[in-house]
């Protein structure tokens, strides 16, 4: 539960409890867990009013992506290039059955390899949420689907959620220097709930094209068809045309739920 937004007073004990401490135990305003609520550095100047409305949640992450391509054979001998770029691709394999066949055709062995992307500064991903914790952020990826190599999709997977509830945020926003901001509405996504592992999954697709999904095609460049195979993600750029997993790109993007 977030701290009050405009109280007549706010106590160090309230802040300590919100940070995960035990009520009535010793705490200092310079403790790392208390500073983390408002993103302050050690020994920085701080005012109690800065904790108004603060919540022990993680609402934004900067992703160092892993990028991965695959060339697949379709019907009548046709071939396609697929991409799956971002963070936590293994979760897409873990929840493959939960999502039916919505998660593209890159093989599970590819998705489960060591190149999973990472989150800058190693925040506590189990605190993913806006005003309260939704669960653990397991995956944000950009991928193409099925035989339609021009179909652009974004998935967010939150695990350990405990209950089936299509809620917890309004918008998922992606920003990166030089990139037009992408804002995806929760209500435009297809929502899945997996009882095994209690995962909540949102997938936005250019194919279903809700109001905020119509621009998704702008974030997939090139073509996934022969002979060029030049698909590239604008959200997680990482070179195109290589089937080798890649984690060396410096094109990080920031993803925020609000």
């Amino acid at each position: 539960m977030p701290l009050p937004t405009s109280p007549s007073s706010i106590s160090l004990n309230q802040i300590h409890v919100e940070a995960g401490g035990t009520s009535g135990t010793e705490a200092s305003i310079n403790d790392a867990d208390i500073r983390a609520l408002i993103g302050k550095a050690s020994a920085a100047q701080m005012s109690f009013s800065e904790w108004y409305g603060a919540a022990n949640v993680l609402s934004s992450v900067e992703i160092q992506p892993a990028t991965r391509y695959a060339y697949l054979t379709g019907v009548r001998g046709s071939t396609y290039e697929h991409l799956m770029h971002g963070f936590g691709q293994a979760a897409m394999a873990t929840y493959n059955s939960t999502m039916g066949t919505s998660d593209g055709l890159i093989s599970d062995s590819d998705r489960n390899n060591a190149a999973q992307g990472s989150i800058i500064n190693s925040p506590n991903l189990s605190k993913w949420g806006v005003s309260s914790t939704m669960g653990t952020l397991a995956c944000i990826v950009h991928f193409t689907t099925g035989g339609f190599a021009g179909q652009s999709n974004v998935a967010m997977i939150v695990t350990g959620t405990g209950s089936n509830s299509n809620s917890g945020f309004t918008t998922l926003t992606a920003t990166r220097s030089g990139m037009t901001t992408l804002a995806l509405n929760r209500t435009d996504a297809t929502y899945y709930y997996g009882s095994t592992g209690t995962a909540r999954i949102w997938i936005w697709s250019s194919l279903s094209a809700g109001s905020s999904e119509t621009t998704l095609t702008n974030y997939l460049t090139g073509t996934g068809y022969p002979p060029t195979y030049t698909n590239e993600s604008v959200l997680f750029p990482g070179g195109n045309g290589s089937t080798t997993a890649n984690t060396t790109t410096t094109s990080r993007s920031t993803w925020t739920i609000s």
Partner: protein
Amino acid sequence: MENITYLIKDDTSEPNIKWAEFQLNQQSICQIRAVLDEYNGVDTVATQKKVNDWVEASKPWDELV
């Protein structure tokens, strides 16, 4: 193809949005937007078709539903 059974659920924060929820398989539940009529009621015929079409499209191309 038989009709897929679905439930209508109100969105948790948007009063003008309703969801069609159905069992996708043994492990999972899926929600897609229900089709509403001009009075913001659920168009059950259009929603049923949307659910059926969605399930059909989610299967491998050579699998019968």
